[in-house]
């Protein structure tokens, strides 16, 4: 069992006594806390992204993923329903599925001792259960029903599959909140979506630094020169920040620039009016939803993002890889009914995102700069006070309200 949680922080370090406008640096570095986080948060009352419905379209299709650091299988059962379970044989704990995905499975067989599971993860048979030549075998009272990997409750919205371990997790759409869900649905647009690329960026930082980064509407136009210079996302453009009632899910929205003479960013590093692109196709935007929105970053607590920047669309699923690494999976997608021209535009605009993105590469390294900066400062805190101390929706993005919202829910679940 993981160690008991440390409600006031590791004993050698100061307690997190104040509110979420100060975040102590030990939350990114404490190994015992990471175990508690797995148990209370990832296996707690949250909805974790599992896969796209289209990836497991037919009965017997399955995918392997992780929830926190737990290996998980998600599969389409013979009746068309979706099941998800821990990828761990009940017998000796080996992985049941050894690849990233498969099609047409009738059942799952552990390679170690041939224990067999159905598509829902129920243990169906044990090799030599009744022994060989009348000898050996499992005790007569061994029950198949009483053993098996832990199972998730699953739910879907907009063609995406989510899972939770906890009985008390509210239904998925309540959890996301109506306002955030509305923006989520705008991006997915009721359309059949098609994966067009899939990459993993291994970040040199604790996963929570990235959870903060995707909620941090304050940094976008300051760190990222492409956002500010090309007016994709400046805080002076219209838009706002939407936060779910639980604080954990959010949407940062940036509207098309209206003021061609915006002086707000004069003397800010990230704006260079002399900086030009030779190929302006990168900025050739089609307003697909007729709403002037140039960028939307939708976060679903704890570790999932759906986003649209200009005409590029992506999902991001980031999971802990040890305490000081994060696996950030990028899933690029388009609509199945894209014209060739629109698909080509998406491919070009995707140069903004991903491990080599003109914008996103900077988020790839920034967490590492923090990790190294705080190396000997675990008893110090960061300041999360832009826009005050609130955690509710705002019409400005010059605020860290969504970062605070993340921490409010994190503290409640982890018990710190």
């Amino acid at each position, binding site marked *: 069992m993981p160690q008991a949680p440390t409600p006031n922080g590791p004993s050698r370090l100061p307690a997190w006594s104040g509110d979420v406008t100060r975040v102590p640096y030990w939350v990114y570095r404490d190994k015992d806390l990471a175990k508690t986080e797995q148990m209370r948060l990832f296996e707690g009352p949250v909805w974790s992204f599992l896969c796209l419905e289209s990836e497991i379209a037919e009965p017997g299709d399955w995918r392997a993923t992780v929830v926190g650091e737990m290996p998980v299988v998600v599969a389409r059962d013979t009746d068309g329903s979706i099941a998800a379970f821990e990828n761990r044989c009940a017998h000796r704990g080996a992985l049941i599925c050894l690849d990233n995905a498969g099609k047409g499975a009738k059942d799952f067989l552990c390679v170690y001792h041939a224990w067999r599971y159905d598509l829902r993860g129920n243990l169906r048979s044990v090799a030599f259960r009744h022994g060989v030549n009348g000898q050996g075998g499992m005790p007569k009272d061994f029950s198949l029903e009483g053993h098996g990997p832990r199972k998730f409750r699953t739910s879907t919205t907009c063609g995406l599959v989510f899972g939770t371990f906890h009985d008390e997790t509210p239904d998925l759409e309540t959890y996301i909140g109506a306002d955030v869900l509305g923006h989520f649905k705008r991006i997915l647009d009721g359309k059949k979506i098609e994966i067009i690329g*899939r990459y993993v960026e291994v970040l040199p930082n604790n996963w929570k630094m990235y959870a903060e980064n995707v909620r941090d509407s304050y940094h976008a136009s300051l760190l990222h020169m*492409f956002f500010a210079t090309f007016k994709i996302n400046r805080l002076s453009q219209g838009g706002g920040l939407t936060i779910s009632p639980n604080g954990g899910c959010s949407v940062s929205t940036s509207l098309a620039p209206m003021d061609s003479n915006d002086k707000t960013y004069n003397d800010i590093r990230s704006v*260079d009016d002399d*900086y030009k692109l030779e190929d302006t196709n990168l900025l050739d935007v089609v307003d697909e939803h007729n709403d002037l929105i140039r960028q939307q970053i939708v976060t679903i607590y704890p570790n999932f993002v759906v986003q649209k920047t200009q005409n590029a669309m992506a999902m991001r699923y980031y999971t802990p890889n040890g305490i000081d690494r994060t696996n950030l999976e990028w899933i690029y997608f388009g609509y199945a009914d894209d014209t060739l021209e629109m698909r080509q535009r*998406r491919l070009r605009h995707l140069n903004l995102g991903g491990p*080599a993105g*003109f914008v996103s590469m900077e988020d790839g390294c920034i967490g590492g700069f923090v990790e190294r900066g705080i190396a000997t400062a675990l008893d110090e805190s960061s300041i999360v006070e832009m826009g005050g101390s609130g955690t509710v929706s705002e019409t400005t993005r010059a605020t860290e309200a969504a970062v605070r919202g993340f921490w409010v829910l994190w503290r409640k679940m982890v018990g710190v």
Partner: protein
Amino acid sequence: MMLLRLAELNAAYAQAIDTDQLESWPDFFVEDCLYKITSADNHKAGYAAGIVYADTGAMLRDRVNALRTANIYERQSYRHIIGLPVIGTDQMSAETPFMVARIMRDGKTALFATGVYLDKLRETNGKLRFVQRIVVCDSSYFDTLLAIPL
């Protein structure tokens, strides 16, 4: 002989990147080129999106300009080791394996990427250039970020 000409081209390509002469990197391509960095899994699945996708020479020059003036990343350099090409029957396409080590400013040297270049070539005025260079990395995992082109 094509093998020697390609080996020479790849040697010059690697030298340009590894010695930080990135401004000359777009000159290895024709204007109506396709340069894409993808991975074996993405390539096999037929996924069109790369982590870098440039289908004009201007996009290659924009990439270099962004690295020079816009993007934030730590100082780093590459060492390319490019293997011998397998030349296609049309003599103007090739598959060439590569390994790239990345050297960070703090001195850490690590194997950053391995893979194969899927090339199509065109000769103009006696000079060979890439019409297409699809960089198929063996792994879909990239450490921290990819700034300098492969």
